């Protein structure tokens, strides 16, 4: 049943609702393909036999009114799942089994979905290539030896490689959109406050957002509709009117004003990206949108700001991993010795690096120069967006400054790795929604993505734009199943 795994979520839901497929058939198909795809290293924890049991149970008494009836879904290993090990890609949580469920995953199970397993990611979501995971690299299904992007690399590879019909990732500085772009898939980072952070292992609280990753825009809209709920367990969750995104999806974007920010034309950007962007502008015009040149003057300060704010928050968020209550503990002669060894052995080098950066920028004597300054620059960056949104409905940019790179290529150069997030980071700083859609291939045949940034809470608007453009772009991912022997 290889045709099952190549179906979109929407068509699987339709087939199950029309009883053309059973949940068991669908689940077995994805389990089977996942079993054959170990070389991608997408999973950290598999829950396959439970998944099949659950699918059988679903089929016994199928509730077909649900939005995800009996659909098997693997999720990023940053979401706490009750009774299923949750590692955040770290050694320090190697044996951690939550007794609780994140709000976002609970919303998914409430709509009838079934957990397939937990997907690989950069350690504590800190990375852009999935190379910082304690559980090893993830291979990009596009080509052997290629990174899938990060931090939601396992999630992107699993969707692109058809190991799960859809998935959820988290995005702090581009962790959904960049891997989506690298794997030829669709990824949405919702408005800050749209999806509850309850039960998601925190990286940087003021930036983290969960979001859907899918094969197409329609699937993405459906999952966003399921996961976005107001949650009183998260004080930053926002109570706004959430749309029926998949039902209200339309390709009619006539007259929509799309801004093109000149500052995103960065130095050293490959010609192919420039070309892609131009093509994207043409597609948008073809759909009836109006193109407006805009300026976001403080764009170049976004990355430095991000690399202060995110590590600062992370240094504090990760203080709870101290070997006392759960997770890995190294032996120590006394409490302090135990702390220092546990954290030194339990965290990987990138996480340690960011904790150090964060500790430094918050430490006495440096707070004002770095952390406070960054918060002020963050305000200016947000002001830039507020200003242009008086004139435009959305902004179109490339998703990344390059296509997927080789495993190991940037591993030892943190700054060049960080530069990967140059187009995605400003969106997190301003708390806006943005979607990455596949828009073409580079000369090597690697996918490239375009990013559509919307106004706060206007997920429907960017989903519609993406939906219309997806139709025009008509992208086809070249997956050869090279990893299946």
């Amino acid at each position, binding site marked *: 049943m290889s045709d099952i795994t190549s179906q979109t979520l929407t068509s699987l839901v339709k087939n199950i609702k029309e009883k053309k497929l059973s949940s068991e058939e669908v689940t077995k198909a994805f389990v089977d393909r996942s079993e054959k795809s170990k070389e991608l290293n997408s999973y950290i924890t598999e829950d396959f036999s439970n998944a099949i049991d659950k699918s059988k149970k679903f089929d016994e008494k199928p509730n077909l009114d649900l939005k995800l009836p009996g659909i098997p879904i693997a999720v990023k290993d940053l*979401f*706490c799942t009750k009774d299923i090990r*949750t590692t*955040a890609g770290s050694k320090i*949580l190697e044996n*951690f089994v*939550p*007794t*609780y469920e*994140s709000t976002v995953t609970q919303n998914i199970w409430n709509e009838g979905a079934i957990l397939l397993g937990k997907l690989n990611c950069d350690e504590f979501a800190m990375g852009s290539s999935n190379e910082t995971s304690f559980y090893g690299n993830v291979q990009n299904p596009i080509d052997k030896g290629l990174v899938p992007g990060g931090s939601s690399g396992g999630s992107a590879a699993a969707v692109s490689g058809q190991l799960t019909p859809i998935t959820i990732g988290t995005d702090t500085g581009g962790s959904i959109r960049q891997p989506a772009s690298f794997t030829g898939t669709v990824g949405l980072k919702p408005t800050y406050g749209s999806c509850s*952070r*309850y*039960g*998601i*292992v*925190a990286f*940087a*609280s*003021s930036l983290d957002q969960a979001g859907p990753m899918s094969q197409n825009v329609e699937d993405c809209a459906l999952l966003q509709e399921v996961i976005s709920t107001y949650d*009183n*367990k*998260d*004080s*930053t969750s926002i109570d706004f009117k959430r749309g029926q995104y998949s039902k209200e999806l339309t390709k009619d974007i006539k007259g929509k004003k799309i801004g093109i920010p000149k500052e995103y034309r960065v130095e050293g950007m490959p010609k192919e990206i420039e070309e892609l962007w131009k093509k994207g502008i043409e597609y948008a015009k073809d759909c009836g949108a109006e193109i407006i040149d805009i300026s976001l003057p403080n764009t170049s300060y976004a990355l430095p700001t991000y690399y202060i704010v995110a590590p*600062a*928050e992370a*240094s*504090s968020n*990760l*203080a*709870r991993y*101290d070997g*006392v*209550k*759960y997770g890995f503990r190294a032996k120590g002669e006394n*409490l*302090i010795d135990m*702390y220092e060894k546990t954290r030194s052995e339990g965290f990987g080098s990138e996480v340690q690096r960011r904790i150090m950066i964060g*500790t430094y920028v*918050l*430490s*006495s004597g440096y*707070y004002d120069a770095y*952390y406070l300054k960054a918060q002020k620059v963050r305000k200016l960056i947000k002001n830039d967006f507020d200003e242009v949104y008086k004139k435009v409905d959305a902004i179109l940019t490339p998703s990344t400054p390059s296509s997927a790179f080789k495993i190991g290529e940037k591993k030892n150069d943190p700054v060049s790795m960080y530069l990967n997030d140059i187009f995605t980071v400003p969106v997190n700083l301003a708390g806006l929604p943005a979607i990455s859609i596949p828009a073409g291939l580079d000369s090597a045949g690697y996918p490239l993505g375009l990013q559509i940034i919307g106004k706060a809470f206007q997920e429907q608007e960017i989903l519609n734009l993406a939906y219309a453009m997806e139709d025009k772009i008509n992208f086809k991912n070249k997956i050869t199943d090279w990893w299946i022997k």
Partner: protein
Amino acid sequence: MSKENSEYLIERYDNVYEVVIGLEVHAQVTSNSKLFSSSSTKFGAEPNTQVSLVDAAFPGMLPVINEYCVKQAIKTGIGLKAEINKRSVFDRKNYFYADLPQGYQISQFKYPIVGEGIVILDMPNGQKEVGIERLHLEQDAGKSIHDMDPQNTLVDLNRSGVALMEIVSKPDLRTPDEVSAYIKKLRSIMRYLGTCDGNMQEGSLRADVNVSVRLKDSKELGTRCEIKNVNSIKFMQMAIDYEANRQVDLLEEGKSIDQETRLFDTKKNETRSMRSKEDAHDYRYFPDPDLLPLEVTEEFIEQLKSDIPELPDDKKKRFIDEFKVSAYEATILVSDIETAKYFEEVVAKMGKNRDMKLAVNWITSELFAVLNNKNLEISDSPICAKNLAKLINLIKNGTISGKIAKTIFELMMDDDKDPQVIVEEKGLKQESDPKALEALIDKIINDNREKAIEYKNGKEKLFGFFVGQAMKVSGGKANPKLINEILKKKL
């Protein structure tokens, strides 16, 4: 060392030093659940049975603020006549410790919920104002137990996340007595408001004491030391005395004082440096990104203001004005809200013909003595206000004498019996019928003729003998006032 009754000065040779004290009081907010989680705050539960996933800082757990704790903090601020900040911010104070599961404490650093206020102390030599710098909300930590296991430290997180108010005074205190008065007043205000039970034994009220010394008449502040977590008024006073003298000795030796955190050793009665904590002093405060700024409206504050009960200072003033008690008596009566309540109830039950003097005396001497003996709070008094009022009225209207009243008072303690009933059952009613008393006295004079003559001949001391006889013969029931009058007439 200390001079006069109110001054507290330290003398060395020609130098006279003044002691400057500021207090950081940690008061546990009275609430059902914790500041950021729905766990119970009850004292004395089995270890780790009042711990939620939030309190134990599990991955992905988030704080959600308890409205009642916010109200309690604002009410306390109102009680301290302080400025209430409509916008305040929760910060993270970062440090590692076994009983701090998050690796940070959520507190308010830059923008506290309550700003400057005032506490008025009633000292023997008059009133003294102590400035309040600020009051902020923060989480309590858990408890590390070092003496249950020889190799390990055990951690109980029941207290982790309980709401505390940190109340910071200005360095306005000068003597250990003022410190005691300040703590007592603060506790009294919070108990009136119901915002903190003030129980120091259970740790609901603890204080860090900042002590510095300077030459008398100097205007500059000396280098201060902070004595951490002292949990009784007596220990605070002892710690201050030790610390102030230590600092003076250092200065006299020409040495300087290091600004540091010190610990009071209650066994050795000394303070000592906690140097091991020094390197961890960079707390890296920053606004907690899991919480938005706390904003309250004018209406919210006004609503709370309208709910504020009469506080000790106002009550004292009213007691003096309305009940004509002395300032000293009023201070005692209002110091504890339950005492004040009791007193007011007695006054109310006494009715129109009330005798304040009697009421104050019976409460502050007889009743207090009993409570003290039995180690009871006035709210658990064996004699209710209504019955005490009745007893006082029986004295006032001459039904019983003061002496008999004491006997009745003892009897009332069983089952809180109505004094009227006791008087009737035991026939203790005072004899106030002049005819009956005249007959009684005639008989006594008759039986003691010789002494009556001696009296008439000038031995005036014998008057007491006749009064005594009258009381004895009447079984103590004779109205002493009438006895006096009749005796004078007849002898």
